[in-house]
């Protein structure tokens, strides 16, 4: 009836990979944060797929909790980014070099 779960898992793995690569190659802190969101969504897709494949509502409950934690994480993370970059110019990770010897 529906598409085989393996295709969803492959798509989720691909999405996770793109998010990880983006996290590594981008230097804008906000875009890096968005890449983290991409990776979280890939994992959510995996959990929903397994919930369907194994016929277990627990996977969907896990996605629910991931959503809540992601919302909290975004709020705190953006607060940290705002408080760092309010007093510095530039918003790339390369501008944070106070600890450089």
């Amino acid at each position, binding site marked *: 009836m529906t*598409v085989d779960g393996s295709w969803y898992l492959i*798509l989720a793995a691909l999405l996770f990979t793109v998010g990880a690569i983006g996290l590594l190659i981008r230097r804008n802190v906000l875009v890096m944060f968005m*890449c983290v969101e991409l990776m979280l969504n890939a994992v959510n897709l995996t959990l929903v797929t397994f919930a369907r494949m194994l016929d277990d509502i*627990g996977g969907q409950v896990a996605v629910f909790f991931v959503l*809540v934690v992601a919302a909290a994480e975004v709020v705190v993370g953006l*607060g940290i980014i705002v408080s760092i*970059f309010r007093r510095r110019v530039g*918003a790339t990770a390369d501008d944070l070099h106070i600890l450089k010897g």
Partner: protein
Amino acid sequence: MIAVLAAATKVDLAVFAVSAVIVMAGAFGVVFSRNPVHSALMLVMTLFGVAVLFVAQEAHFLAVVQVIVYAGAIVVLFLFVIMLLGVDQEENVAAERLRGQRPAAMALGGLMFFLVLLLAQATNWATGTPSARGAASGPGENVEKLGRSIFTTFLLPFEVTAVLLVIAVVGAVVLVRRSPSLPEEGDAEDEAAPEPRGQRRDEEVPA
């Protein structure tokens, strides 16, 4: 009956293919856009695609929450911060600070992809143990089953998330609040930084 099933399969396949293309296009857009605002809008595209895939797998409640919380709240928060910081100018994506870092990142990412696929394929992870939390299919609505599970089996984690949200709100307020007693510092060690964009540089006393 057979024809109806075959038609359903074709429709499902089409839904999956189209949303997969949308999801991946949005993901590549997030990574390769020069402008952070474009990245945020591409992120919305990916999130909508994932929501469609949730619907296709009968996770209706999660699809709605995905659109409301992620596409509605989180991306708007991102856009607010982009506008607040004034960092919506384009970044030179091609410039490479560390030599060889980008190819290394691509290679590592590809390696990780194949390792994940290998790991998923190597072992059968499903043990066949019946679920202790209830079935996802069967009679009843998705919301009903999800709610029953959250408010019985997962009641304590659910209440802990409430505490977590309160902590996040308080933490965000504490982090972003400007304390009036502290002087504005942090400009002194910025001499090596690139050309300033902010307006605070105007009142800076040259050392």
